């Protein structure tokens, strides 16, 4: 059984006001005694706590800059917590960015192995899923062409097909993936993936999608968790609150 426990999670970014600090700035700052003056702290997440158990389908809503994506990335271990703890039980699949880790000079087939291993598939698993991935992406003809010659559509199909080829315990979806910009057969594949996942967490601005796919909604605002409950409770409240803000 998969589960996620987040306790008092805070994540801090340093914002640089003009440019990236060089050795010169660093040395200069040592003498000026106001080190780090060129940067300031920004808390993308502040004291966020929640538990997610098996069976939960969680939608995260909130305005731009609420910390939704930061939270997803923290769950996927891209960002390390500045304070607090995250513990995850189960294999988590990072579907944050489609085609991350694709290399333009590599052929489609080579990228299946490169990107697949980055996504955590074993070599044997990749061998097994390779024909299905290629068939689903409808790229049989071009699979041995470098992906830099692919059209955007071909590229997206391959990346999507590969990312959704295995069924993870915990599925983490960012906007694009959850959005409806895909062909029907991609939607079917997506819903199948969601159905089979033990836990699903998604970020979306589409309230109808959240209501239809999720049984729980977490509302974020300025890095803090505002409300946590069923879509029936939270969504109307969020939409109402949104009108005032």
């Amino acid at each position, binding site marked *: 059984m998969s589960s996620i426990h987040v306790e008092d999670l805070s994540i801090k970014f340093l914002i640089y006001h003009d440019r990236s600090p*060089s*050795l010169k700035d660093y040395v200069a700052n040592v003498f000026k005694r106001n080190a780090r003056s060129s940067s300031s702290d920004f808390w993308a997440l502040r004291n966020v706590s929640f538990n997610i158990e098996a069976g939960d389908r969680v939608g995260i809503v909130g305005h731009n800059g609420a910390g939704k994506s930061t939270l997803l990335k923290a769950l996927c*271990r*891209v960002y390390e917590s500045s304070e607090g703890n995250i513990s995850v039980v189960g294999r988590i699949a990072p579907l944050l960015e489609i085609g991350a*880790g694709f290399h333009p000079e590599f052929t489609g087939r080579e990228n299946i192995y490169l990107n697949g291993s980055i996504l955590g598939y074993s070599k044997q698993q990749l061998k097994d899923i390779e024909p299905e991935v290629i068939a689903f992406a409808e790229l049989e003809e071009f699979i041995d062409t470098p992906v830099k010659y692919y059209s955007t559509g071909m590229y997206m199909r391959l990346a999507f097909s590969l990312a959704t080829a295995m069924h993870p315990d915990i599925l983490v979806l960012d906007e694009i993936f959850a959005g409806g910009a895909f062909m029907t057969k991609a939607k079917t594949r997506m819903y199948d993936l969601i159905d089979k996942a033990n836990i699903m967490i998604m970020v979306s601005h589409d309230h109808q999608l959240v209501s239809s796919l999720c049984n729980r909604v977490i509302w974020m605002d300025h890095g803090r968790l505002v409300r946590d409950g069923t879509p029936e409770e939270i969504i109307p409240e969020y939409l109402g609150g949104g009108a005032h803000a």
Partner: protein
Amino acid sequence: MSTRVITFFSELYDSRNVLHQLVAQQLILRYRRTVLGYLWTLINPLLMMSVMAVVFSALFKADLQTFALFLFAGMIPWNFFSSVVTQSGTAFINNEGLIKKIYIPKALFPLSIASALLIDSLFSFIALFAIIIALGGTISWALLFLPVSYALLFVFAMGFGMIMSVATVFFRDLQYVMAIAMQALFFLTPILYKPDALAGRTKWLIEINPVTPFIALFRAPLIDASLPSSDAILQATMIAVITIIVGLTFFLRQEKKVVFRL
């Protein structure tokens, strides 16, 4: 700390698949669509060393053949070391897109650079070895020591590489500083000359140079057909162990900040 080290290594082991892919990526991509392909990895250092052998043997009034042998044996470890140190500087910077999107153990990036360079180095070693034999080098049992030389050199370079990979993210200037520093270090390392050739004021620079014993580890079996002196072996082992411990400690302390500074 010790649990962190254990998780660090077990994560690395679990990601050996990714390491394999990253190394292949570096080896394959470099010369894709060039006519000579991977051969460039051999041609480039061979040409460079040949020119150096001709120029410096004339300058030092040494026999070309003897000097070429001497130079080649020193250049092999040096080229590996200096490439690992300079290329590790861009390990994270070049993979920014990936690091910000998907979690993979960060040590894979400097490790894949060092591994790919080790493979390059082994290939150019084979080519050079053929030349060394043709020039009159001797084959002896001492050559069996070379894998140990390579292992120690790899650990040493890797320690440096791990520090460089993280430190360059915080200070981008370091890439350029290191390019100059490595050039200076080249002349301060007994590659073009024997360790005892620099006497007088600059002598201590050679003595404290951590690369010096590693050159000896390669030169003794290749040129003198003898095992390296126990002093050189001991020094190299100590330096390698210290460097990798310092490198690993620094890396484990800082790697989590990397994503926020890219």
